[in-house]
């Protein structure tokens, strides 16, 4: 068998598949962030905390109510989205007319509060959550855990549905227009405030969904979100801010690139995203799928 | 009236302070103009010595601009005679603003060359074009919103002081420009607004401010994109008057939909339609051209 850079092609397949799986998390997280940023112009720093809340939601549902993973997959995002909508109504709403820096500061503050409360209650080293789909398939070149296979398929479906709703329906143009001139869109007879609340809720729900998906695979801990947020943010920027397709494709794509880096230069695997971001922005100012305004 | 004109034209605050107004019109060449500035350290970008030998200040030939499969400007040859007012008219979307953007280098032409004073500026940067003495205004009003009206004008005056990179110098050094700035504001009827922030001005006044800012550069060539749009009658009259006065020493290229202003002011008119030149000539000729009437003027326009 020939070898590529010292790695057997079989192993390389395995690594690529892993990258794709990892990309699934990025995609779904960055999708939520892109929906919120692209459409509401809010840099949602709470996104990481909401992702964490999703994971904890699953844990709580299991441990306090006895609802298993599959139920949590529906209930936890709805609950977190509801909290998100309350936040939007009471706090974020008052900042739309300001520079998006203020939204950033507010959501950052909220993230600290949420994270702090969870740490206070559950400690910082995390909680166990069992794998709902144990076992796996041996693909020959690697062992593919069932749960990971589920994650990839499930997130692809979610991403495509979201993309369709936003890009291929009227809702998408309302949202994009409302980003630019909410007052004017409202003057056309659209209930912009409600639309924005629901959109924020939706974006937050996606974050929580990613959180639930993460619970069986990663550590369920209060810090799980804050470590990820900046990377996810980079994904959104590389994809082109506000571009739904961009977020999805870049999410999966960067998962792949990161996966390869983990093989060839593992030390740089968390930096590679930023290298790509710098290059992309210098060459294509509005990101891969973005349009310059 | 003439007195006022001269105040506008005199660019040296120092002579104003001395109270010794020069009674004759300011010499035309830019070199002399710069001399009027005691602090003029910023070297003007070199201009060919043959400046005034060229009858045309701007010569654009074969100008073409394509946007993703759409040609906004097609093979336009535009020559603008020195010290005239040249109007560019045409239906909406004809490519007038695009021509402006090309000439001032805010857009890169797909094909064609542009010469300013005989000098090829096809590859020059927009800021440098402005330094060569060709300054534009924008169609959608462009002011510095959170600067005061006075500061707006001063920013334009300031460049010639040559201290714009001096981060160690005091702002008060700019106060020397206040008198000159006030004169300019006076001219466009904005002196009572001097201390207001530009955002607070009503639309029409913003346009006036923009003209004052443009004039502050004392440009050799002025490009005005719809200078009177959004203005009330008095303002239109005042602005038209102003343009006429300043044009005595300068070349003006303007886009304007207000035909009475065009008729009143322009020496030459170029009519663009669908990116191409339809015809060119004085108002009397152009306005009789049936193609122009059909594509642009419409029947029986009153002069607004």
């Amino acid at each position, binding site marked *: 068998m020939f070898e590529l850079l010292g790695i057997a092609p079989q192993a390389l397949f395995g690594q690529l598949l892993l990258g794709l799986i990892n990309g699934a998390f990025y995609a779904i997280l960055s999708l939520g962030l892109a929906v919120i940023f692209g459409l509401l112009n809010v840099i949602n720093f709470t996104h990481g905390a909401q992702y964490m809340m999703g994971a904890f939601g699953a844990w709580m549902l299991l441990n306090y109510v006895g609802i298993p993973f599959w139920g949590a997959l529906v209930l936890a995002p709805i609950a977190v989205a509801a909290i998100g909508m309350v936040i939007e109504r009471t706090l974020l709403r008052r900042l739309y007319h300001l520079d998006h820096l203020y939204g950033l500061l507010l959501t950052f503050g909220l993230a600290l509060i949420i994270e702090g409360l969870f740490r206070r209650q559950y400690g*910082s*080293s995390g909680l166990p959550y069992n*794998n709902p789909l144990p076992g796996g398939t041996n693909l020959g070149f690697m062992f593919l855990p069932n749960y990971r296979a589920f994650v990839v398929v499930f997130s692809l479906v979610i991403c495509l549905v979201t993309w369709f709703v936003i890009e291929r329906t009227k809702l998408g143009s309302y949202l994009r227009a409302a980003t630019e001139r909410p007052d004017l869109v409202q003057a056309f007879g659209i209930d912009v405030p409600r639309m924005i609340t629901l959109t924020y809720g939706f974006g937050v729900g996606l974050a929580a969904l990613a959180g639930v998906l993460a619970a069986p*695979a990663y550590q369920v801990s209060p810090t799980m979100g804050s470590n990820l947020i900046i990377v996810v943010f980079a994904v959104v920027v590389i994809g082109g801010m506000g571009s739904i397709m961009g977020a999805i494709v870049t999410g999966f794509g960067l998962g792949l690139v990161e996966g390869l880096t983990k*093989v060839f230069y593992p030390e740089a695997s968390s*930096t590679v995203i930023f290298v790509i971001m710098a290059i992309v922005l210098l060459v294509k100012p509005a990101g891969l799928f973005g349009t310059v305004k | 009236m003439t007195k006022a004109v001269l105040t506008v034209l005199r660019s040296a605050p120092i002579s104003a302070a001395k109270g010794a107004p020069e009674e004759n019109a300011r010499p035309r060449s830019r070199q002399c103009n710069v001399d009027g500035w005691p602090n003029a350290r910023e070297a003007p970008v070199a201009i060919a010595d043959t400046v005034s030998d060229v009858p045309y200040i701007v010569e654009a030939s074969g100008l073409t601009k394509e946007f993703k499969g759409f040609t906004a400007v097609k093979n336009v040859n535009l020559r603008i005679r020195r010290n005239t007012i040249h109007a560019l008219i045409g239906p909406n979307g004809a490519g007038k603003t695009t021509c402006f953007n090309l000439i001032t280098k805010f857009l890169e032409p797909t094909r064609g060359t542009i010469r300013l004073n005989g000098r090829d500026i096809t590859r020059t940067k927009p800021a440098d074009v402005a330094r060569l003495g060709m300054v534009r205004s924008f169609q959608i009003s462009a002011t510095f919103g959170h600067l005061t009206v006075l500061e707006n004008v001063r920013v334009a005056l300031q460049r010639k002081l040559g201290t714009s990179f001096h981060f160690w110098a005091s702002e008060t050094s700019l106060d020397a420009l206040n008198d000159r700035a006030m004169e300019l504001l006076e001219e466009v009827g904005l002196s009572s607004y001097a201390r207001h922030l530009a955002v607070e001005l009503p639309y029409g006044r913003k346009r006036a401010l923009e003209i004052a800012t443009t004039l502050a550069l004392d440009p050799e060539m002025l490009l005005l994109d719809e200078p009177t749009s959004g203005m009330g009658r008095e303002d239109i009259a005042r602005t038209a008057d102003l343009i006429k006065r300043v044009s005595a020493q300068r070349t003006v290229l303007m886009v304007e939909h207000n035909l009475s202003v065009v008729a009143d002011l322009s020496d030459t008119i170029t009519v663009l339609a669908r990116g191409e030149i339809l015809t060119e000539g004085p108002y009397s000729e152009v306005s009789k051209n049936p193609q122009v009437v059909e594509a642009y003027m419409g029947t029986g326009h009153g002069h607004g």
Partner: protein
Amino acid sequence: QSPSAPLAVKIGVLNDQSGLYADLGGPGSVWAAKKAVSDFMATPAGKNLKVEVVFADHQNKADVGTAIARQWFDVDGVDVILDVPNSGVALAVNQVAKEKNKVFINSGAAASDLTGKACTPNTVHWTYDTWALANGTGKAITKNGGDTWFFITADYAFGHALERDTAAVVNANGGKVLGQVRVPLNNADFSSFLLQAQSSKAKVIGLANAGGDTINSIKQAAEYGIVEGGQKLAGLLIFLSDVNSLGLKTAQGLTLTEAWYWDMNDDNRAFAKEFAAANRGVHPTMVHAGVYSGTLHYLKAVAALGADKDGAAVVAKMKEIPTDDKLFGKGEIRADGRQIHPMYLFEVKKPSESKYPYDYYTLKATIPANEAFRPLSESECPLVKKS
């Protein structure tokens, strides 16, 4: 000493109160210090002292840590600083303590440099260090047939140190290191690295990382069936709190080294019971126990000396009297500041074997005190060379 005016002692617990290391130290360490104080006050020697405990959060930032340490020493009259997890902060506080001639008793940090290159006459390192962990886990596993290793290492100094120390032990005991992969800190997904470890066919996968990274790698190893596939996981720096957050289902079978475990004798259990009652049912880690013992021993030394202002003198006294308390038993503090006690090799129980909360470990071996830590002969500590 005049019995009429008790000597005022101020103890400062400086650690991570809200971050990554809050569970293994954090508020629990403060409780442990206070407990040691009240236990000491109950003894006759306690009558001569008036002890106060303060605490602060260094947020895992060296500058915040040193700022607090300086202010405590300069302004607030703190005499001794305890705990300080996070090697970076610990090394910085180590310097300040020396500069101000106060006492620093570390329980939470892993850096063996504290008693090596960076040792000072003012510092005591109590509970564990990278050398001890590497030695405990590395030796036991290699001797039991786990003779080929692959490391998943956190790409940070402590990870490198753990890997280096363990590899040395493995090689010394006839084992072989087949490879390693350096992973950036706070990486959530280890599947790629686990796959590399898997394909290396090493018998043992050494996890030279900590906290969330360790938890994630173990969790995902279970997902990918690594242990079922016949490879063994060795956690080189794992605390009871980590095992708790992993859950036994995932953590079972893991081999690890600790300096102290709550369920080993009645004294420990009594301590744990009280600790749990005060800390939402959480059980103490070895770091908590180390803070308790360190505080107690410090107070003994101060009481014996009758003074607490000269830190070096107090530490000299601490080294002079043998350590003895109900949690760590009898021991000593070496010239380099290393507190010496046995280390223990544990295996994590299966869920079915666990009978009550925090019933997590089975004792596999005890490493006697004289073998548990880096021998003085190998020490780079200048204090040792002089003596």
